[in-house]
């Protein structure tokens, strides 16, 4: 019931704000502090947009596409990859959509639209201890950026995610096989992703409630394990890589509550073909409990919802960014007693802060621990926002 993923709401407002910041002269100070971004959240006008009120039956491939009647939406890919000789990399490619008005404008111009897009791209070179990231903005018009469902295609200029229609998904309706390509002068990725598990609907059959307020929720599903192969190029060096990716798709029209400071989000792919998604929305008031939720995906694809009280997240370490001076948590212990799971989650490298127009930490992590008394390991991504 309460398994909403609040990060979506944050991202939505964030995306809108970033678009604003992007067109300002950043000046020597660079990015806007996250605090003001979160502050802007409550002022986002959502009148006239559809809201996530009740669970709906997702229909694929249609629901892989865009839902323009909702204010915000995002398609999110992360993955941990390595070369044959064990050199490790992480990547992130995210496309955000934000509608500025509920209705498209009536205009003869192909540039006219109410849809705006933002994309983030990042590559972590674990062994090189390097982190590359970039961001882009475009209007959802003239084919500069957009998302289509059949075949699935999501792009912002030449950063693109497209359905690999040549490969079969073996009777799995919600599965997607994808080709992705993105990059900048420093790093590029060209990857082929193959679904190995069907879509996981988070929360109440895909309705991810965020607070008690009706409509303060999103529709949210994930493809938690996509076999991935391809190349990562850093500078002039090209690396052939394999590994696993995680795909999220979420859409909503909702805003973050005033008393929430930010969020921590975890996506972990564990040995034994299981996956774990957790988040906590941090309350500003230390007396008030954080808003938490999660999903545990068994090897056969069955999903267990994790409610408040089902798990704890303990911060073991912290790291302060030299570039921005922001202190982030840097190691966690996660306990889920009902599954007999204890995990220590550690960033692959510390420096995975996206110091873009909007500043946050999003990085590849490794996990080790015990599952029902047996050793377990894994890898994934963690996202941290709202830290000062």
């Amino acid at each position, binding site marked *: 019931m309460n398994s909403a993923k609040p990060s979506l709401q944050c991202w939505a407002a964030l995306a*809108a704000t970033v*678009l*604003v910041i*992007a*067109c*300002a*002269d950043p000046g020597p100070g660079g990015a806007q502090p996250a605090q003001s971004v979160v502050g802007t959240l409550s002022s986002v006008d959502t009148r006239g947009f559809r809201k996530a009120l009740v669970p709906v039956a997702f229909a694929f491939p249609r629901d892989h596409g865009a839902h323009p009647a909702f204010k915000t939406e995002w398609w999110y890919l992360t993955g941990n990859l390595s070369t044959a000789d064990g050199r490790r990399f992480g990547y992130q490619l995210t496309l955000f959509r*934000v509608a*500025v*008005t509920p209705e498209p*404008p009536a*205009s*003869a*111009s*192909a*540039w*006219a*639209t*109410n849809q*705006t897009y933002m994309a983030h791209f990042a590559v972590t070179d674990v062994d090189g201890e390097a982190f590359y990231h970039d961001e882009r*903005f*475009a*209007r959802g*018009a*003239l*084919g*500069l950026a957009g998302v289509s469902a059949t075949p699935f295609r999501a*792009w912002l*200029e*030449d950063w693109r995610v497209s359905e690999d229609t040549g490969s079969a998904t073996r009777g799995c309706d919600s599965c997607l096989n994808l080709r992705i390509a993105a990059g900048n002068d420093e790093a590029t990725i060209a990857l082929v992703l193959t679904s190995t598990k069907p879509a996981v609907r988070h929360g109440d059959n895909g309705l991810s409630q965020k607070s008690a307020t009706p409509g303060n929720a999103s529709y949210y599903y994930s493809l938690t394990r996509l076999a991935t192969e391809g190349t990562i190029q850093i500078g002039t060096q090209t690396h052939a890589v394999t590994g696993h990716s995680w795909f999220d798709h979420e859409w909503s029209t909702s805003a973050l509550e005033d008393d929430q400071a930010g969020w921590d989000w975890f996506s972990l792919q564990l040995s034994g073909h299981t996956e774990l998604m957790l988040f906590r929305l941090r309350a500003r008031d230390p007396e008030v409990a954080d808003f938490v939720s999660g999903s545990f995906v068994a090897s056969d694809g069955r999903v267990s919802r994790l409610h408040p009280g089902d798990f704890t997240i303990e911060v073991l370490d912290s790291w302060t960014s030299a570039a921005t001076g922001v202190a982030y948590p840097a190691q966690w212990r996660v306990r889920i007693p009902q599954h007999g799971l204890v995990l220590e989650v550690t960033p692959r490298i510390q420096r995975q802060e996206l110091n873009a127009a909007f500043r946050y930490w999003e990085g590849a992590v490794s996990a080790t621990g015990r599952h029902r008394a047996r050793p377990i390991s894994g890898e994934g991504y963690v996202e941290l926002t709202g830290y000062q």
Partner: protein
Amino acid sequence: MILARISMRNLIRHPWQSVLSIVGIALGVAVVIAIDLTNDSARRAFKLSNQMVAGQATHHIIGGPTGLNEILYRDLRVDHGIRDMWPVVEGRVRLPDHGDQRFSVIGVDPFAQTTHSAIYRSTRDLSPTELLSVRNAALLAQDTARRLGLSVPSELRVRGAGGRHRLRVTATVQSDSALEGQALRTVVITDISTAQVITGNVGRLTRIDLELTDPTAVARVRGLLPPDTELASSASRGNALQQMTRAFEVNLTALSLLALVVGMFLIYNTMTVSVLQRHAQIATLRTLGVGNRELFTSVTGEALTLGVLGVLAGIGLGIALSHQLLALVAQTINDLYFRLEITQVSISALSLAKGIALGIGATVVAALAPALEASRVPPQITYTRSGQETAARSSVGRLARFAIVPCTVAAALLLLPGGSLFAGFAGLFFAIFGFALLAPALLLLIVRLTHPWLSRALGLVGRMAGRGVTESLSRTRVTVAALAIAVSATVGVGIMITSFRTTVEHWLVNYLRADLYVSAAGSATGVDPNLIRRVSQLPGVKSITTARWTKLDGAGGRTQLFVLDAQAKAFENFQFKHGNAASAWPRFKAGDAVIVSEPYAYHHRRGVRDRVVLRTDSGAREFEVAGVFYDYGSDRGVVAMHRDTYRRHWADPAISSFAVYLDADIDVDRFAATLQDGVLKDSELTLRSNRQLRALSMEIFDRTFAVTNVLRVLTVVIAVIGIFSALMSIQLERGREFAVLRANGFTPRQLWALVTTETGLLGFAAGVLALPLGLFLALALIFIINRRSFGWTMQVWLTPEHFVLGVTLAVAAGLLAGLYPALRLARTPPSFALRHE
């Protein structure tokens, strides 16, 4: 030290002379500085206005007459990942609620780039989400909003090629500098989608700006472009555009230098007279052991003092004057060349330095001869005025013979084929110099010729006046030359303008043969063809021809294209310089041939059967020139092409205007009124009768020469001040002579008559001398300067008014200059002037 004090005393003892010299130099320098500041301000405004949009752009992708297909932008970004570029849609609108002012609309995609140009930077006050979420959101400069009385938010109605629209001013832009504010003065910034709609450019981009720093990127983009587009570097494109106004600027500069030259004569005159007056003093100094060098330095120093004071006053005057001239120059640039907002005089140190250097330089050069003269005064106390005059008269012949040198140089510069515009002006100045050398001889001739007539008319006074002039030749020759030159300039420029004007008038009569002209305000979508069909079906309409005016931009500059669907009959409206209508028509109609205007042929050195290269939709293509026609509409030239040819090579169906020929028995005014209230009602089209269009053309013509006329007047003012100063000093110097006359029975009235007759005679002489020089200047301006500047052929139209005016002006100046000394002398009792005897 003593010499310096003597010099200073000398300047103070003749305050009138000193002050008038200063005023003369000041005016000359002021005109030079004002024109230079004005030209410089126009250049800066052009550069800045370019930068406002182009910003860091190193290159532009430019298309055909209708710009670029917007899909090209998408393809470059999405398919080829070219990112350092941003699209621009530009157009014109009018503001019906604000006196129908003309504004530029600049449409931007704030997502494309954020820091490249001032226009993009200015959008910092408006979020792109707002740009997209508020319907027809628009940005204005803060000053502009204030000027229009608009607060934020408020509504702004505009009328453009895309019809009438209501914009919503959602933010204002604070410009970083006054110049930036000027560049944004009449600019509305909107989202690119809004700009496309209101300027009637849906689906099209005006251009794509790029920032390409390495040659491989340039080559890559060039390789991706379709044939109807071109990648041009900003520098070459800006230069090509700026070249358009170059001839105009050079002409203004030359005129301003003429004013300075007249000012130079003034200084020369003052110093010469001053040295002559002080011959005795100088001779005394020589006997006291003062060397030639000291005397030379002393006289030069005196001149320099006047020069510096004049230059200082000239700077202030020049800056003030430039504010007045700027509006006139801006108007001409907007009328003839391109839309440019110039309201701000930018005071450039370089312009001021140029003016100062020219002013001081001119003073020193002008003082050289008098200073030499002073240093050559023999050290003897016997001072004879008659000696000076004898010397002056004997030098007349020498000077006249020496005139052959500058005249030969002038002839070579003016007549040698292939000479530049600069050489043309240099030739003019040499000719003027030659004339100045001839002036004393001619002056003597005129006095000799008028002598019998004067003595008959005025008796003794008349005879004395004539002699007075020849006897004071040392003092009057330069004065007369200066006045003659100034008057000749005004006569010459006047004849040139009249000739030009009459030529254009005649040309318009032949050229504008249709009864009514209907044109679209904007340029993009133009006139609706259905509307033309409806007009053609009205009773009384004999025929209709349509025209399309468009520009082809290329790396090599801009080509004005005139596309018309004329029939053979209307084609005969063209007056051919080379080729003829009959032979050109078949190839023009069916054979991909074009005809070019005279200035185009001149600037591009093209003649009949040569070829011009134009970039069509399928790439660069050669077109044969079938004829060269007279056209005074554009000084850069026009390529005219048949509509069929145009449509074969350009996918642009737009029509800019159409001309209506009526049956002979139709009342044109009544038909126009019916048309305006009928078919044209609610359209954005402008209807003009043949007569109105001609009047409008002449209005623009006259506006173009407004600056020229101001400079003309200023030059004459300088000359009048000069003659006033010179003649007055001569007359005042003769106090003793006049006292003797009075003592011998001359009445004050007779004395008054003598003085004014003498100065009037000098003025008359100058006026008469000015006539041949004026005619010569007119011919040189028409046949050499104008051709080298613009390539036009003009018929010479000589009307008496310029000659009459010239002589009247000179005589009036002479009489005026005699008035004060005459009055003063007449009032002075003879005993007062003679008491030192």
